């Protein structure tokens, strides 16, 4: 009996040891392992004359975000397959889940997707761990890149926004090209022409005027026949996405910085006296003229409120207003006009941008075919078709922005082309590039919510700056 029990204990011990083996081996190999990075680029393997059919028969896998730009891309994929013989398989995820899906996929070290959509801010997060292919060598290799791709045709600020040296605080436009601009958005003010006419208002040229108009609309519009209308729609959810459109644009126009950089060291600057005053005023504007339940507002609510005639103005991406302004899209379509928005005290129209870019997985096994796809997707032919026959507006290429067919299409939207042309050269990434961007801006949004809720702006922003100093310093 004793022997039997002893045997059972031995058996259990053996079982436990076997169970622990993978754990121990995991300890040994550690954290993803298998990092076979080399200094050379796969672009160097492409030689000879350029040929669109070079990778005929290959299948490229793409991860895409649900967006009108994506719809335009998918609608035109047949022409890519005809041109190259390459098939594209894709998954589309809604924006709420898209970046989590992409982050988890890239960080797992797999190459489930060869190409994907990303924003310039994501380069700061995905670039340093080595998840993104440097597209610079591909762009420079004439065997890999068609002459008609015409790099010089891109708006230079857009191309630079996806270029970074991977060093915190270093300016954009230097180092590797970790993504290509594909579609972008500039942040401007869109307004309901009906309510402006009825209340005798003109678009704001200063921030004080904007705050004033927002409050006026909220007070007077419901009595003037615009039931339930408030002044200005701006984002307010506890997310990085709240900071980057209208807020960061106006913040930058006031000459304010998120961080100061000295000797490669970043110091939070969102608690400077000027930044505190601006943030207090912004929260005050939202309180006086913003949407009810602002703390849950994403771009979608802002955009749909403008379309539903619930908001008199929208300070956000021009595309968010465009999708409501096109004929038949919403009750407000035909009554939405565009304006660059308030200038800073020195007349600045510095504007923060969002770029939907396309990037390549550094672990992709089909880099040559993926590069052909990226070239086609960011090329003149596809982007022109997408801009003119679909809703891929805000062209990343100068030739499309100047194309008469594109201008004809956009001309019926009051102020759109004029606004675009006014801000295009002053639109750039207004944030300081650094890896902790998402932590910093999410905390910043939380701070903004607290100030909106009545907390003291100075103490909240001092707390934020103190917290961030340890993380980014």
């Amino acid at each position: 009996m004793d022997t039997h029990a002893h045997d059972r204990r031995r058996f259990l011990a053996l079982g436990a040891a076997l169970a622990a083996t993978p754990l121990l081996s995991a300890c040994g190999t550690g954290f993803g392992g298998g990092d076979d990075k080399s200094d050379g680029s796969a672009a160097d393997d492409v030689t000879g004359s350029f040929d669109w059919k070079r990778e005929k028969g290959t299948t490229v896998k793409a991860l895409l975000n649900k967006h009108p730009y994506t719809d335009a891309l998918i609608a035109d994929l047949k022409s890519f397959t005809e041109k190259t013989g390459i098939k594209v398989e894709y998954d589309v995820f809604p924006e709420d889940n898209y970046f989590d899906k992409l982050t988890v996929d890239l960080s797992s070290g797999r190459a489930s997707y060869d190409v994907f959509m990303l924003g310039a801010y994501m380069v700061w997060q995905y670039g340093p761990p080595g998840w993104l292919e440097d597209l610079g060598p591909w762009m420079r290799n004439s065997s890999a890149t068609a002459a008609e791709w015409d790099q010089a045709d891109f708006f230079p600020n857009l191309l630079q926004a996806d270029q970074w040296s991977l060093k915190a605080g270093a300016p954009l436009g230097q180092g590797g090209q970790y993504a290509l601009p594909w579609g972008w958005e500039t942040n401007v003010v869109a307004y309901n022409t009906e309510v402006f006419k009825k209340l005798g208002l003109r678009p704001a040229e200063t921030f004080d005027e904007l705050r004033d108009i927002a409050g006026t609309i909220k007070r007077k519009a419901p009595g003037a026949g615009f039931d339930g209308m408030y002044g200005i729609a701006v984002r307010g959810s506890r997310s990085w996405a709240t900071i980057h459109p209208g807020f960061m644009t106006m913040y930058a126009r006031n000459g304010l910085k998120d961080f100061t950089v000295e000797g490669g060291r970043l110091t939070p600057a969102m608690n400077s006296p000027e930044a505190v005053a601006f943030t207090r005023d912004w929260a005050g504007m939202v309180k006086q003229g913003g949407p009810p339940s602002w703390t849950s507002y994403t771009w979608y609510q802002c955009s749909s409120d403008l379309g539903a005639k619930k908001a008199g103005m929208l300070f956000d991406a021009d595309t968010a207003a465009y999708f409501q302004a096109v004929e038949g899209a919403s009750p407000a379509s035909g009554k939405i006009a565009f304006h660059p928005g308030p200038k800073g005290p020195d007349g600045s129209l510095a504007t923060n941008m969002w770029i939907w870019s396309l990037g390549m997985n550094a672990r992709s096994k089909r880099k040559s075919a993926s590069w052909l796809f990226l070239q086609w997707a960011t090329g003149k032919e596809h982007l022109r078709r997408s801009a003119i026959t679909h809703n891929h507006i805000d062209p990343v290429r100068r030739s499309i922005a100047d194309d008469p067919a594109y201008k004809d299409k956009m001309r019926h939207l009051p102020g759109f082309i004029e606004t675009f042309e006014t801000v295009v050269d002053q639109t750039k990434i207004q944030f300081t590039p650094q890896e902790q961007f998402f932590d910093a801006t999410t905390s910043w949004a939380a701070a903004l919510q607290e100030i909106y809720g009545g907390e003291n702006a100075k103490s909240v922003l001092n707390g934020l700056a103190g917290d961030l100093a340890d993380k980014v310093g």
Partner: protein
Amino acid sequence: MGWRPALRPYLLIVPALLLTCGILYPFGLGLYYTLFDFSASKPQPDLVRLENYTTVFTQEAFWNSAWVTVLYAVGAAVVETVLGVSVALLLHRSSVIGRVLEKILILPLMIAPVIAAIIWKLMLQPSVGVVNHLLRPFGLGGVQWTDTPTGALLSSIAVDVWVYTPFVAILALAGLRSLPTSPFEAAAVDGAGWWYTFRRLTLPMLWPYVLVAVIFRFMDSLKVFDIIYALTEGGPGDSTVVLQIRAYLEAIRFQRYSFGISYTIVLWAVVYLAAMVLVKHLGKIQRKAAEVK
């Protein structure tokens, strides 16, 4: 004895052993990762031993999240228990209506909590939501349900209550229907009133069932993520950032993997200790209930 009968006991424990390994392996791996400073920016990390835990415990953000988590869990568990037992008592009294209502009552449990939170987010929207629309005739149409820290926490608890009260009610109802009838008949013969019978007979005998529901709901509420994230994303400010949301933000959104896992390990320890205490208490309650029977 032949080799086959001798082997049988070992073969019988193989499924349990595999199951245990399947649970312990990821848990152990997670625990192991917390000893390093593993993040996206440090794919080949250094061993930092317990530094992640000391950082967690010295962060003001952790204590804020811990406090919010406890408030949420206690609030949700208490309200759900009181409401659930009350509903069960009502349904138990009326057999025809009760059976119809039972079927309706179970509906919230069939909806994924995240979907329920999204539905409630729309319903609580101040200007177009149905809740304010219904309150408008009473002069309460302008409530900003999730815009204030207290409002956001209470709204989140309310959604939790809406989803999970039926769970408590169904458990309590099953308990009520399994109670012996003779003590109640004796009490009726003695002329005992409803309140006396409820206090001295029903409640003591029902307690084990109620406590099982409380254990489930309290543990689940400590681990809440979906309802709060869909409703408030943790805001306004940090007012509804419970420990799970903090862990998610750290590990997934900010890619500080080790640090994020440390949060979940701390949460696991809290849930484990709370469950141990409650289960021990359940034993005592069960013994007392048996004495009443």
